[in-house]
């Protein structure tokens, strides 16, 4: 199934950027958790094995075949999302984990992938060029179903990437700028309403983001400590294992959502700039894959993946820098967490798949 010509188009740059980000993430994970025995590191290594297998599997079969599975995959994901609501244990206030022995999995991560595929399928099969009101509704419906289910867990952070995904798909499927502006205006007007729909702890996060010193021991702690961690790294950092903020647990969630703070502290501005460059290369290669795709399906898959990975990365870095309120979004490829790693690898596998098969044969 894997043709020679396709291998010739394999995007080694994208692959390298992906592995570089993952490697950097593992390094920081080891550094920030070795005091707790390093078990998390080895677990993440095992997950990396799963992710690589999934990646190879996805790459080896034409993406159009996978797109054919979009509907059953989407339905399965939605069913799983319903199942976790009823069966899952409550972990940190949400029911979002499916447990398989030692390995836990978040269906919400898979749902992102299935939704991208569904959206791309819909755009592919739609007749005509523009974006009718009806198809806008249909796209909205495809996104809304998993989002509502995930919100019910409740895991607001995981629903966040669906918004830019929807936005990118809508923009690219030819929505008129005027319509977009009207929708945007409505969105802005909804912000205050949305704020009051947030849970009190989420409102607190927004407030402390505005003024972290208002409660430095309480809700503002994470924001402040992250800023201290990154800032104290200086130009060259304190060296691996040398970051007091991460090592002494001043930084909560240092191995998951705040892994970049550890990097900023231990590897300094040099390390942070490297990470930024790696993600920039990664994203631009995904966009370039979209540009060179041979059909709507491929192009929309790539841009969907770009939207999800790009938005997650940008929001995560924004939080690290204290430019955004805490959201609970992991850094793709770097943060500890199996579901996220596997999903991201599979998504990037799809992008490489599109890239490899860009030439009409």
């Amino acid at each position, binding site marked *: 199934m894997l043709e020679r010509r396709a291998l010739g188009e394999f995007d080694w740059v994208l692959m390298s950027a992906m592995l570089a980000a993952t490697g950097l993430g593992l390094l920081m994970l080891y550094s920030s958790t070795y005091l707790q025995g390093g078990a998390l590191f080895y677990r993440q290594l095992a997950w990396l094995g799963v992710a690589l297998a999934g990646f190879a599997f996805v790459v080896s079969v034409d993406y159009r075949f996978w797109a054919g599975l979009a509907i059953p995959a989407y339905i399965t994901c939605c069913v799983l999302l319903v199942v976790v609501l009823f069966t899952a244990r409550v972990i940190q206030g949400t029911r979002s984990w499916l447990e398989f022995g030692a390995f836990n999995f978040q269906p919400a991560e898979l749902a992102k992938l299935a939704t991208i595929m569904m959206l791309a399928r819909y755009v592919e099969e739609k007749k005509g060029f*523009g974006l009718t009101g009806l198809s806008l509704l249909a796209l909205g419906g495809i996104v809304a179903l998993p989002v509502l289910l995930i919100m019910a867990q409740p895991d607001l952070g995981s629903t966040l990437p669906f918004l830019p995904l929807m936005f990118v798909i809508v923009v690219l499927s030819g929505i008129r700028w005027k319509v977009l502006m009207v929708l945007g205006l409505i969105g802005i007007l909804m912000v205050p309403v949305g704020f009051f729909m947030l849970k009190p702890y989420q409102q607190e996060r927004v407030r402390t983001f505005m003024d972290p010193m208002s409660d430095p021991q309480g809700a503002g702690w994470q924001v402040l400590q992250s800023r*201290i961690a*990154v800032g104290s790294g*200086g130009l060259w950092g304190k060296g691996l294992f040398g970051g007091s903020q991460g090592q002494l647990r001043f930084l909560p969630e240092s191995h998951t959502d705040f892994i970049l703070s550890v990097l900023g502290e231990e590897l300094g501005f040099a390390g*942070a*700039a490297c990470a930024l460059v790696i993600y920039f290369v990664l994203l631009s290669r995904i966009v370039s894959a979209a540009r060179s795709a041979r059909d709507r399906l491929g192009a929309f898959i790539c841009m969907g993946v770009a939207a999800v990975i790009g938005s997650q990365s940008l929001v995560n870095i924004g939080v690290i820098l204290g430019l955004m309120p805490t959201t609970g979004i992991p850094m793709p490829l770097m943060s500890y967490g199996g579901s996220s790693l596997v999903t991201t690898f599979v998504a990037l596998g799809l992008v490489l798949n599109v890239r490899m098969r860009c030439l009409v044969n």
Partner: protein
Amino acid sequence: MTPDFRHRIEYKEYVEATQFSARITVLSVFCTAIMVGYLLAFYYLQVVQGEQYREMAEANRTRKIVVPPPRGAIMDRLGRVIARNRPAFDVVLDRERGRDLEGTLRVLAPVLEQELPDLLHAARGDGRPRHEPLVLASDVSLSVAAFIEARRADLPGISINMNMKRHYQEESSGSHALGYVGEITRSMLESGNFPGMQQGDIVGKSGVERTYNTELQGKPGERQVVVNSGGRIMGELAGGLEPVPGQDLRLTLNVDMQRELDAAFADQVGAGVFMDPRNGEILAITSRPGFDPNFFARRFTRSVWRGLVDDPRHPLQNRAVQSAYSPGSTFKPIMAAAALQEGSASESTVFFCSGSGVFHGRRFLCHEKAGHGPVDMKRAIAVSCNVYFYNLGSRLGIDAIARYSQHLGLGRRTGIDIPQEAAGLVPTPEWKMKVHKDRWYPSETTSVSIGQGPLMITPLQMAVVQGVIATNGHRVVPHLRAGRPDGEWVRHDAADELLSSRNLEVVRRAEWAVVNEWGTGTRAQIKGRDVCGKTGTAQVYAASAGTKEEDLPPEMWDHAWFVGFAPKDNPRVSFAVIVEHGGHGGTAAAPIVKRVLEKFFESEEKPARPQAPPPGQVAHARTPSAG
């Protein structure tokens, strides 16, 4: 797969129709702009503001722990320890290490003699951070501490924490001079007299503990520790500061005399001072009732404190320096010295005592109703004839009396090195006009002549005055701290120029007669020691003539004074003792003086061997920290 040209063309059209490429470019530019912004933000945070955040991270990670310095010991003149630090054991619970808390506390409750619910309540910690050890019981006995140490394995999370508490060996003996220590109060902190101290620090609160607090307390050390976000100590940094132990303080007190003085008082109320008149060294000083300063080092309850404060006998009051009394007849030697010096009378001046006399239109009584007949000065002092001194007072006048009194140090603080000394009072016409808005009546001079009226003198001042008489006008500053050059404590300012040694010798001979011939103080007589003294009774209640004191309830009895010095030639100790409501000085106060003086001469002849501070002074052991 077959080529699908139709599909391809359609996609191309689609791409053009939807401005697909352009829209991707817009999105990419938007995304790139954010990333460039982030790069600048990282630069700003890490490079521009890096130093500031590095300091914040350092402040996060390190804590300064104050290591209290061991307080200096207090010793008597021969180096015998009076106050030192003793190890005290606290039972401490580390909740992070505890397992089966209830089971553990069930074992502990009978050992600590506490109720289980109380212990469980204490173990909750009332919202204090979990890593902070909780003190379940403080200052437990050594056997309890040993019991717990031996069973540490069965009592997870429980440990014994050793710290230092002040210990006063002599308990209530000499308590007022020593003072006590306690946690610094807010008002002391705000006074600015205790630089560098913080709440919870232990400071001297009265007596020499207060006066010499700075030297005794030493300088606190500092440990720099690395803590994690929970505040748990993860390690220690080099470069801490060792505490500088407080200096030991050597006092002029003689423990043997001090004990004897306190014992001689038994449960009588009063005060006593024994001083070396040559240099002002206080040999023994007491105020009764005393208190046990160890109370303040232990956890003492509100009720204990209230008990001390509300006690009608005011045990916290240092009567020797803070209370001024009417001197009564003990003022007569001062009158005699003044009259001799002023030339108003000589040793051989004789007045006739008929039991009373009329002065300034009022009849004043002598205590001897039958009268003493003709008395000269020596006899007047020895038998304490009032009429003789009424006459001297009339000749001298209030201004001269006040001047000599003030030259002898009355009416102002002696400058002893313990806080809150009272100044006493020497009345003058100016004083009366100022305070009572009235002129001075000559009959008041008559009262003052025998030590009555508004005249007020502290026991300490009395001992100093007797010292001046004993040493030819050599007036000293009484003090408790040993080891300073004598000269620093001696005031040559006036008294020795004012009072000639010839005149003072007259007074000394009279005081010798009080004790050794036919006087009122024979109960202080010690064979071969030539004790000199003067009795006095300070009126508490002006009994109408004919009422015998014995018929009055004891709280209306007069205060009994006995003051003096010994031996007559080359005197080495001066003293003043007052027994409140003791009746006559000769019967109540003189025996106390005798007992202490016997101790004095005994220790002079068989001096106890000076002692070096005990080896391994516990004060200098470093307190091990829990955990």
